[in-house]
Structure formats: C-alpha cells, structure tokens
C-alpha cells in the first residue's frame, strides 16, 4: 500500500495516512491495522495501530514514537510503499440504541475513540468526550471534534490531574448508559472501577504485545471470566482476535 502523508501533529506524535482498500472501507472503530515496519529483521514483529479514521481514499492512524518500530514509521514519506494488513480484531459494539455515552481516552489511546466519535455523530448519538494528555503539547485532537473535556498531568490543558477524575465528576451530573474507554492499563482499571460502582456498561480496548495480530500465534492472551471455551482453552482470550475491545466484565485487566 502507498503512504499518502505522514505528518507530525503533536509532540512525538504523528498522523499517517495510506491508501484505502475495499476491505479497509468496512473498518469499524476499535479495529486495528498491523504494520510491518522493517521487512523481516528488526523490529521482528509487526506493529499494531488503531484505525483513527477511514474515508473513500485513505485510512489514518495516529501514533507516538516510543521505540525502534515507531521511529522507522516516522521516517516514511508520501509515496513510500508500506506493508499493512487489516482491518483486524473486533471493534466497539455499534448498537448504540440512542443511549447516552461517554468516550474516555488517554494519550495515544484516543485514536479509536475519534473514529467511534465520527460514527456516533453520524447517527446523532449524544456523547461526551473526555481526553487526558501529558501536556498541551501532546494534544492532537482536531478541531472538528467539539466539546472535548481535557485533563493534563501538568495542567497546561484543561483540568490538572487524571482524566478519570473528569469521569467521576461527569457521572454526578449525567445519566450515562455506556462508557467506551481506551488508554493505558492503570487508566482502564480506574475507568472499570468507576463504571462498576455506577453500574454502567463499559467497553475497553486492550493492548498486548502482538506476535501476529491475526489469531494464529496465541501469544496475546488476557485472562477472561467467560467460563466457556475460547480459541485458546478456557482461561484466556486472544486480544488480537476476540478483542482488542472487550466488555469490561469479560476480562480481568
């Protein structure tokens, strides 16, 4: 596939777009693509990234440079060819049934929620978007996404503190039916705790190291509470195939 653009949009954070395909046009929020950043040498595994947006002509991912793989990705330019497979995985449940929803994300956990936001807006779903960043310099959320409530670690953007504090506050004043979350594990755990206390359905997108991203290596497991057979015995679910989005009650984060 061909890279259409690869631009820095915030501190250490890039937006990469590439040619869309018929298959990718059907991508759903929460699904991911798996990118071979460097042939077969190093890094060895493909690198997974959530789909941030899909249009007729292009697919967007947003990534933070944190190691060798994402660094190589950041050096790609428009016109380069890129080895991508996808869409992969199970995304968010889009059966909204007009319920009030909160999208809550931290750092580079926000891209799948941006895609979800678009789908919800199309359907006129009432939603609140809560976003947490390290600082204002890390914020990459485009202006077209309105009514975002921000938090930041250093107070340079929105409220100083955790994005989960915004969630607690928001639930005091609003009746919410469904929380959609993506971000670092400690944040997800806190979101789940708050959702459980308030008895609100909660969908989380989980990250693990992926060996294949296609459900064949059985490496990306998370302990589940399903009490039924999965692809890999009983105790675990495959994050890349049965997830990355799970109902919070189905997995033990």
């Amino acid at each position: 596939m061909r890279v259409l653009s690869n631009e820095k949009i915030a501190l250490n954070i890039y937006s990469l777009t590439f040619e869309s395909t018929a298959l990718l046009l059907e991508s759903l929020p929460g699904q991911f693509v798996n990118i071979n950043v460097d042939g077969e040498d190093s890094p060895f595994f493909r690198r997974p990234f959530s789909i941030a947006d899909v249009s007729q002509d292009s697919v967007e991912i947003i990534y933070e440079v944190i190691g060798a793989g994402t660094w190589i990705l950041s050096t790609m330019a428009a016109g380069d060819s890129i080895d991508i497979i996808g869409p992969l995985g199970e995304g968010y449940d889009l059966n909204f049934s007009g319920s009030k929803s909160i999208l809550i994300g931290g750092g580079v956990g926000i891209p799948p929620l941006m895609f979800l936001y678009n789908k919800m807006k199309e359907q006129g779903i009432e939603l609140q978007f809560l976003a947490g960043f390290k600082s204002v310099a890390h914020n990459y959320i485009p202006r077209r996404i309105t009514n975002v409530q921000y938090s930041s670690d250093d107070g340079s953007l929105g409220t100083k503190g955790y994005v989960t504090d915004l969630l607690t506050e928001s639930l005091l004043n609003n009746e919410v039916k469904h929380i959609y979350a993506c971000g670092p594990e400690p944040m997800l755990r806190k979101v789940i705790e708050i959702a459980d206390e308030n008895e609100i359905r909660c969908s989380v997108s989980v990250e693990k190291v992926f060996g294949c991203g296609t459900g064949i290596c059985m490496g990306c497991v998370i302990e589940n509470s399903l009490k039924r057979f999965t692809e890999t015995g009983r105790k675990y679910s495959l994050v890349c195939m049965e997830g990355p989005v799970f109902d919070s009650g189905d997995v033990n984060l």
Partner: protein
Amino acid sequence: MKGGNQDRWEVDFSIELGDLTLKNPMLAASGTYGYGRELNNIIKTDEFGGICTKSITPLARDGNEPPRIAEVKMGMLNSIGLANVGVHAFIQDKIPFLQSLDTNIIVNVAGFTIGDYVEVIQLLEEIDGIDGYEINISCPNVKGGLEFGSSAKSAAKLTKTLRSETDRFLMIKLSPNVTDISEIALAVEGEGANAVSLINTLIGMGIDINSEKPILKNVYGGYSGPAIKPIALAMVQKVYHSVNIPLIGIGGIMNAEDVIQFMLAGATAVQLGTVNFLNPTALTEILDDLVAIAESKGIRKISDFKGRLKEWE
C-alpha cells in the same frame, strides 16, 4: 516471477510423501497457522501443499501464563505451552472447515504420556478427511514434553505404539534440543514412521535488564525464526545421510531461497512457521519466486532439487 504470464516457465510443484501427494512442497507449520481458518480471508489456505494443525491434546489446554511470546534478534521466543481446544472440540468445531479444504490435513498430536497420544489418535481415526499425523515429541515448553524426543529409546517406543494404532501417514517431529538428532531419526524410522519433520524450536531465554526478570513468565521458550535456519539446515543435511524416509525441513524459512536451501540439503518438503505471523501471504510470494529460481536453473520439477547439494572438491 515478475514477467507476464504468456511465457511462464512451467514447474511441476507436486511432491510425494510416502503415499501422499502434495500439490506443492510447502506445509503450514504446527502452531503457526491456528486451525487453518484464521487467515483464510488473507490467503487461500488450500494454496498450501498441506496444513499441520496446532498440537492437539486429549483435553483443552489454556497454555502457560503470559507473557508467553517475545521478539528477539532475528526471531521470537514462545512459551505458549500447547494451548489448544482439546481433541473433542477440535473434532466438533475445527475439523469441518479443514475437511472442506483442497489440501492435505496433517493433525499434529501432543501429549505427556503415551496414553495421551493414543487417545487423540484413536478418536481421530474415526474421522474422515485426515491425511496423516505429525507427532510432536519435542515441544520444549511443558514439563515432561521433551521426554519422548530426548532419547532414541523413548521416541522409538512411542512410534511403535502409534504405528500399531494407525495406517495413516505418520510423521515424527524431531527436537533440536538433543545430542544426536540422527540417532533419533533412525530409531523412529526403524519403528515405521513414514517421515520425520525437523526442527522444532530451540530452547532459549530472554532477560529484561530493567526488571531483572526473564522476559517470559515461563522463563524458557522456544526460539524460532530466521535466526535458527543455519541450525535447521545442518540438522536436515545430517539426518538426510542417516535415514531413507522423507524429511520435512522446518526452521526460519522466510522466502523461496530458503526453501531451495532446505531441499538441496535433502528435504522433500518444508514447513512455513513464524513467517506466517510476519507475512501471511508469504506462500504466494514463495511459489512465484520458486518459478523464477527453477527457470534460472532450467528445472521443471521441484523435487529435482532434493538432495542436490554438491560437495567441495
């Protein structure tokens, strides 16, 4: 093969493995292709000459605790620990799809006792559409799993028992974690194995200097990928000179050149393993590139590469 189709060099890819005929010498390696279905919308699974399934045990197994995969230089470590749905769910949920494929189905069988292997095979003997068994005597991940593979005597005993249970194609998958792999190949040949496949993963370990812990929860894992190819080639070449049954070469195959190297060293067929994780369409590319290599050498029948390794003067 980059050129147009009109003058495409015709290559006969078919090979014989005992009584089986494979349309090409590439099989999917056990544990690296799931149950055959997962990648079917990326690559047509029946393009393979054969599929070796995930190792099947009598009961479902969750496998080892995570982290159970890690990337390392030129490859990966895994300590999956034989996670699988168990033979009953395999027959009910996985076999129907496999039966629908136009390729050879080799069920990989694993166990901790001879009885485990016998139990799985007896149940599978009742099922149509299975072309043979690959016996995993070498999975280094589970305590006791190495036993049958680590001595010629125990490997022979297991082979003898299984031979008496089935007339189907029986292939023994050898462990590289032994002193003399040829001795074990000879022993299983003597008890009626139709072929041997080699190699399974090498025992390895990674360490994280930040946490000062092993990178795998299980401490040890199996090393696979391009890094192990030189070891696998040496073992195939050695075993080729010791036994008469066909060899299936495995270990770090990424492209057509690698396939040819294994065939020159004596392999009748090969298995693609870890490459399926990185490049799910590797097989299609390999088939194309094999045509180009065969053409450059004037070869019309892929099996002509087998054992052609020349000696230094």
